[in-house]
């Protein structure tokens, strides 16, 4: 989003009314990352009242190319608020605004957390089993949130069978491009043939992976990007986190490129008391690669169709062959009785 000249001024007036105090915004700058959403960092000085002081904050709003699957900023705020109240390590959410007169789009404001989230940097350093363990515990806390929560009623009811619901959705996304992808169809057919039953559905983050959490001095500071969350099978998040496609520079480290998956599983099991069926995780790792491939196809389509010409989107299309190869290899190995991601 191009920033209008008066956007910061209007935001300052809005925050002044919110805090019932004179306020001053400094260093309003767009932060890196975020093809779907934009994040703007700034420093807010509040002169009076209970919030008096200097606050480092982030304003999160839609980017020009948001995707239909993602929640509105108002709903993402509700998710973040619910997670924060449940003790999940997330940035503290402060204010949500759906009045487009202020910033042109919906936005919410949260604490700016210390650290970096860049997957390529995070997976280049030494192994960090403590971080993987902590991430396991945090994911277990997210999964302690179950259907029926009033604050998350906008998510709607649980799906009958989460795996089959996702397969149907991904088939629709492929159809919308109008192009044939037989390798992905075979992946989807395999997923359909092997779909597990899910007895208890939980809040799935749906983008819980390296690159979407912040780490400062080796320690987890915040879990980010709640725009795809919904009810589903807990193993969906576990498969997504441990899938090879999200290990960046260290594909041999099965916990998101930072450590061994056992460290992550241990944290999850210690927090939740739930025993992870590691064989069942394999299914959701295949699902993870199929999902990422479908998203990459969609992103590439946005470029080639002329909707949004972009080198970054075009290059994302070139991730599809490695995902197809991975899916087909995993399926082939599974038929031989070898199942690891």
């Amino acid at each position: 989003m191009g920033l209008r000249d008066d956007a910061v001024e209007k935001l300052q007036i809005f925050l002044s009314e919110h805090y019932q105090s004179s306020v001053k915004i400094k260093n309003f700058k767009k932060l890196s990352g975020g093809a779907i959403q934009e994040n703007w960092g700034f420093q807010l000085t509040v002169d009076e009242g209970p919030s008096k002081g200097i606050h480092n904050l982030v304003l999160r709003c839609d980017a020009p190319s948001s995707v239909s699957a993602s929640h509105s900023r108002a709903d993402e705020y509700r998710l973040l608020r619910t997670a924060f109240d449940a003790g999940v390590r997330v940035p503290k959410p402060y204010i949500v605004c759906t009045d487009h007169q202020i910033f042109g789009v919906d936005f919410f404001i949260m604490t700016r957390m210390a650290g970096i989230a860049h997957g390529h940097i995070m997976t280049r350093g030494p192994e960090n089993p403590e971080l993987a363990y902590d991430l396991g515990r945090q994911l277990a806390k997210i999964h302690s949130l179950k259907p029926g929560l009033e604050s998350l009623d906008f998510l709607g009811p649980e799906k009958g069978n989460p795996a089959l619901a996702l397969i149907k959705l991904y088939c629709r996304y492929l159809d919308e491009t109008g192009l044939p992808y037989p390798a992905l169809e075979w992946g989807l057919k395999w997923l359909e043939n092997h779909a597990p039953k899910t007895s208890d559905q939980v809040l799935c983050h749906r983008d819980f992976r390296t690159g979407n959490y912040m780490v400062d001095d080796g320690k987890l500071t915040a879990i980010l990007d709640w725009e795809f969350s919904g009810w589903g099978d807990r193993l969906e998040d576990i498969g997504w986190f441990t899938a090879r496609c999200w290990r960046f520079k260290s594909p041999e480290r099965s916990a998101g490129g930072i450590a061994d998956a056992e460290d992550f599983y241990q944290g999850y099991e210690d927090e939740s008391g739930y025993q992870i069926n590691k064989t069942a995780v394999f299914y959701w790792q295949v699902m993870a690669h199929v999902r990422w491939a479908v998203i990459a196809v969609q992103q590439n389509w946005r470029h080639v169709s002329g909707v949004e010409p972009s080198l970054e989107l075009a290059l994302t299309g070139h991730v599809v062959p490695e995902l197809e190869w991975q899916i087909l290899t995993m399926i082939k190995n599974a038929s031989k009785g070898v199942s690891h991601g």
Partner: protein
Amino acid sequence: MVDQLNGKALLDIAMETLKTNVVGQLQGDAKYQTLMVASAMAIVQRQMDAGDIEIQERNDLISLLKPDGDKNLETLNRQLAVKIRAGDFVESSVDARTMQDHLLNVADIKLQISNPGYKKIP
């Protein structure tokens, strides 16, 4: 005869110049954008080296599907995609294994262009 207007040679030296003289001078977003340009150029370079990879794919699809009509590559892939979704290939059957090997072969060839280093790591 040496072709003085050889496109591949031009791309090679443009890539080399970008890597050697430009990327090191940049920082932040400009560096990221330039690395993306270099990555795109490397893909094109490998595409040129690989030649027409679609001939084999099309021939394999014809042998797999035995189509009566249109033998255009996109049409053939569409037919295969429709058959897979309809459940015409029963897992572990000979037909399914042949089809799966074909898909893996195509993915492998495309992978050599998009990201040839992918299979070297476990």
